[in-house]
């Protein structure tokens, strides 16, 4: 879209957009193209010529049990993280929307974890859930008899990174849900109440449908967050272990490529992730268009 009243200049618009194009070409497009090319090559670790192998890296990837395991872990981890953060965010926002007093204070107390880095959230929760020193681990053992040990047990480690990642995201979801709640016209709810609909009925019949665009948007954002932004949590507290149980796809790209120097495989994994995020973005924008019609 362009403004009806606009300027005409031969050189200026190019100059204005130049920094952005320069940075995107250098650090986005060239690396992406390079990565795609690399995903079809096997590089020689001792220098020398790379070998062009077409789709062999992808074939190897999808027959590699470790990669398939990582796919499964990532899906489970993302679903659990997104669901936990969404449900808690929705619940707290619905309560905050009902509260009449101390609204500003409540909001302040709930939004600051947004500013905490995922890696730091990981450290805080590692301390709470530490097998030797963690208070939560201690009570788990004493009351439920669970021998909790995220340092040795893979499942426990996975639960730990889910909790640490979801905790940080609650406040993000809270902000959006609260804005969503406040955008719902009060007259609708009052009319429904007058017709005899109780709180539960009102929630499912009016609030939930009107909230669904927010919900969809947040679902996408939470899944992207769980896929990509949780790298810091994993790198800081579990390093993908124990036994690869917390190696998500992004962490595996980093580990195979940067630590293991298996460039071809790492590039192929990157390309798979690229395809995935393109899919998510396209879906999101298709939905955004529908949302515009819905509003109008």
């Amino acid at each position, binding site marked *: 879209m362009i403004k009806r009243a606009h300027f005409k200049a031969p050189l200026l*618009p190019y100059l204005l957009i130049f920094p*952005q194009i320069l940075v995107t070409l250098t650090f986005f497009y060239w690396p992406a193209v390079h990565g795609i090319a690399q995903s079809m090559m096997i590089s020689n670790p001792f220098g020398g010529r790379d070998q062009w192998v077409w789709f062999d890296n992808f074939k190897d990837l999808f027959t590699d049990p470790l990669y398939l395991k990582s796919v499964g872990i990532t899906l489970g981890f993302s679903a659990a993280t997104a669901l936990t953060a969404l449900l808690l965010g929705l619940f707290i926002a619905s309560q905050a929307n009902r509260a009449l007093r101390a609204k500003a204070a409540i909001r*302040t107390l709930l939004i600051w974890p947004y500013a905490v880095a995922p890696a730091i959230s990981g450290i805080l929760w590692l301390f709470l859930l530490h097998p030797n020193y963690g208070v939560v681990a201690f009570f788990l053992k004493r009351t439920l008899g669970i021998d909790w040990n995220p340092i040795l047990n893979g499942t426990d480690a996975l639960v730990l990174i889910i909790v640490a990642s979801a905790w940080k995201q609650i406040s993000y979801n809270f902000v959006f849900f609260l804005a969503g709640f406040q955008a719902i016209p009060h007259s609708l709810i009052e009319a429904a109440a007058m017709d005899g609909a109780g709180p539960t009925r009102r929630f499912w019949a009016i609030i939930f449908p009107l909230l669904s665009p927010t919900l969809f948007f947040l679902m996408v954002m939470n899944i992207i967050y769980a896929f990509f932004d949780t790298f810091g949590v994993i790198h800081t507290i579990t390093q993908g272990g124990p036994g690869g149980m917390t190696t998500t796809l992004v962490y595996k790209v980093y580990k195979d*490529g940067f630590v293991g120097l298996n460039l071809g495989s790492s590039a192929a994994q*990157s390309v798979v992730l690229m395809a995935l995020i393109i899919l998510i973005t396209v879906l999101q924008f298709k939905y955004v268009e529908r949302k515009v019609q819905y509003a109008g």
Partner: protein
Amino acid sequence: MVEKTPILDLLTYIFLALGICIVGFPIFYALIAATLPLEMVSQVPMPLFFGDQFWVNIQAAWQKGNLGTLLLNSFIMASGITFGKICVSMLGAFSIVYFDYRLRSVAFASVFCTLMLPVEVRILPTYEMAANLFSPLQAMVELLHIEALVGWFLQNDIQIRLELSLLDSYPGLILPLVASATCTFLFRQFYLTVPEELCEAAKMDGATPMLFLRKILFPLSKTNIAALVVIEFVYGWNQYLWPLLITTRREMTTAVIGLQHLIPDVDDVPDWNVALAGALIVMLPPVLVVLFMQRWFVKGLVEREK
């Protein structure tokens, strides 16, 4: 409220208090741990009262983690990203919205597509690019056999090596992160809501495009910029993957990454009080920014959705 139900209202506040406790507990617990001496923090369960060792632990963390240097790095990186992103996006969006030129839609599409290329999906090639900014030129040199050509021309064997590395440098930490589709979209969205009459009037008065940007658009976008400053500062401060890749020397990394060295291993002395004191120091700047600029923060966050 629609109905007067005291029990439901009471429940609301109870649930809210519970929610605030869940959200706040990790920090509260870390605060207590950071004030205790080592022998108390390693008790299980740890005593739940504030000790008097807070300052000692902070100093220990500051020294052990080299936090002075790392916090400065984080600060430079976060401010650089914030400033760079806002400048680049503001000018880019101005170009896309207020000018008619041939490659306008190409420019817009190329900015849009960066949405689909977060750093996490191009880890290695971006690193290689930053390690040598001239690598595309080098590739071209090799592809066109310029070496052989020049060598033949000069009757001599020569080697062409083009190198400019961004590793372990502030530009390396900042530059790859200053291009942002979301930020450009936000400015574009805002410019589209600016009344047409303003531009018409400015043109009629003979204002140049840059004067219009400076005197009219910029003052109008001040609240948007404030919102972006909060979000981008937090984003920049909390970056993890990119600084991890681009820095090799310990004193060039950021504070968030440096914290990893403070976490005690299973066999080490369990000085969690020091580790958590460090974590508290490092998370303080972005938390303060969010708390003090809450109004703009919420506005900016919610507006990104559109």
